[in-house]
């Protein structure tokens, strides 16, 4: 991600809180790991080395996610339903929609985008807003509750420099593409998979056009690269100023319950 503009007036306090949270999380994880080992030996349960490695990796991955991302994504990082996966995607779509909305507004106030880029920015804003609405509807159809929109922060230069805007957009869109691809195998319902794929395809087109507008190779690799949820959360963490209301504890579990689908 690009360097950050510090829009957070409580930056230092936030860092202290984050450090304390990290320590707490680490100690809790340590206790959890210790408990698992002791409990495992007491019960004499023979777990396979592969399963243990998987758990260790998962725990390590969770610990690597910045606290602000943990507070925002919470239990969505270990999704239990398709609605959870879509809610995870919804946060990313909120992020993209917010970014393009601000960019279009900034350009309207003080033009800084040239050529076809302003039209592209508007197009991307509209597409991302359409994705937000569609995902919210689909989460509701699945019996879940759509997550709210966190408060985001962006580097200030992306709203005054076209080069910075295009570079940042390319990174953002690439993260979206990787997120959808990485989550695809976890989706249970075929309708949901097709729905997610239809958004993923457009995110790939967005990436192509942003890169093309920046004078870069539209498709630098023959295959898209998946990203894990942990990686995505870590990548976007610096862009999150505050989680959505009601998400401060990072707990938001939604289930695929019977509903009109």
């Amino acid at each position, binding site marked *: 991600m690009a360097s950050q503009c510090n829009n957070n007036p409580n930056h230092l306090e936030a860092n202290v809180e984050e450090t304390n949270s990290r320590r707490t999380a680490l100690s809790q994880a340590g206790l959890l790991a210790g408990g698992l080992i002791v409990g495992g030996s007491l019960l004499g349960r023979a777990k396979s080395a592969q399963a243990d490695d998987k758990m260790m990796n998962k725990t390590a991955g969770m610990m690597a996610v910045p606290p602000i991302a943990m507070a925002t994504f919470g239990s969505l990082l270990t999704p239990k339903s398709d609605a959870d996966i879509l809610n995870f995607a919804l946060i990313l779509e909120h992020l993209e929609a917010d970014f393009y909305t601000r960019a279009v507004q900034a350009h309207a106030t003080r033009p800084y985008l040239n050529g076809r880029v302003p039209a592209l920015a508007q197009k991307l804003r509209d597409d991302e807003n359409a994705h937000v609405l569609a995902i919210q509807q689909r989460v509701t159809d*699945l019996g879940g509750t759509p997550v709210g929109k966190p408060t985001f922060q962006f580097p200030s230069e992306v709203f005054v420099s076209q080069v910075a805007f295009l570079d940042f957009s390319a990174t953002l869109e690439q993260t979206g593409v990787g997120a959808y*691809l990485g989550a695809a195998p976890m989706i249970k319902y075929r309708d949901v998979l097709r729905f997610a794929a239809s958004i993923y395809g457009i995110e790939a*087109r967005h990436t192509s056009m942003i890169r093309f507008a920046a004078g870069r190779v539209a498709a630098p690799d023959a295959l898209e690269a998946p990203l894990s949820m942990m990686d995505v959360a870590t990548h976007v963490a610096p862009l999150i100023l505050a989680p959505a209301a009601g998400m401060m504890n990072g707990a938001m579990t939604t289930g695929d319950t019977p509903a009109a689908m």
Partner: protein
Amino acid sequence: MSAETKQAADAMPQAHSLEGSEVALPARRRLIVAGAAVGAASLLLGATPMGPTAGHADLVRSLKGLLHLDPIVMNFAFELEELQKEFFNNALLGDAYDALQPREKNAFNLIAREDKEHFETIKKLRERTGNKNGGRFNSPNASSGRRPRFFNFPKNAFKDRAKLFSTALDIKETSLFAYHGAVDLVHKDTLMLAAAIAGVEGRHVALLRELNGMDPIPSAFEAAMGAQSAGAHLGRYGFRGGGTDGVTMQ
């Protein structure tokens, strides 16, 4: 490879065999019927008073497992990529290419290179999984210097800029929509590969549309096309992996 997989793989269209396109019919039917069966099961279960449940998803997954469509879908994708590879390879040699702007030439070179990579990637996967029957590449004549010409492209496709772009987009978009139409018919590893390719196909489509003065992203959601429709549409280029009925978007 399971017995079912081998049976499905064996039923795939044989490469330019003497029997011609009729050989493809059993595999086509299998793919279409299997897709329809999964869809019907999904719809049926979705229509129950209980609505969709985790059990529903598991059942549809189990059905997909029983049908094991991955080799069939990958054979279809293999021929899609071969078609694209041949088209863009030929494009680089045509008169129309010589008259293109530098950035247009770059785009055609990029697409030709990446379609070749897609083709080689699927080829390796098929070899690794023992799925060597089916696609035309593995026909008795395919590796010889007398390899027959499988695909037919419009007369002026490589001489005229407008025809070059329209044919390129027709092949690219149909292939892209076909990938999206098959996304829920395959399992984890195949899904990841097919989706990773489909994303790049989407980038290619956007690039070609942009260079051709068209809206590169005309919709906020990617369209999907069934294998039967995509195959029928691409039949005009000699594609044999799909069906023969009319073209309808899903």
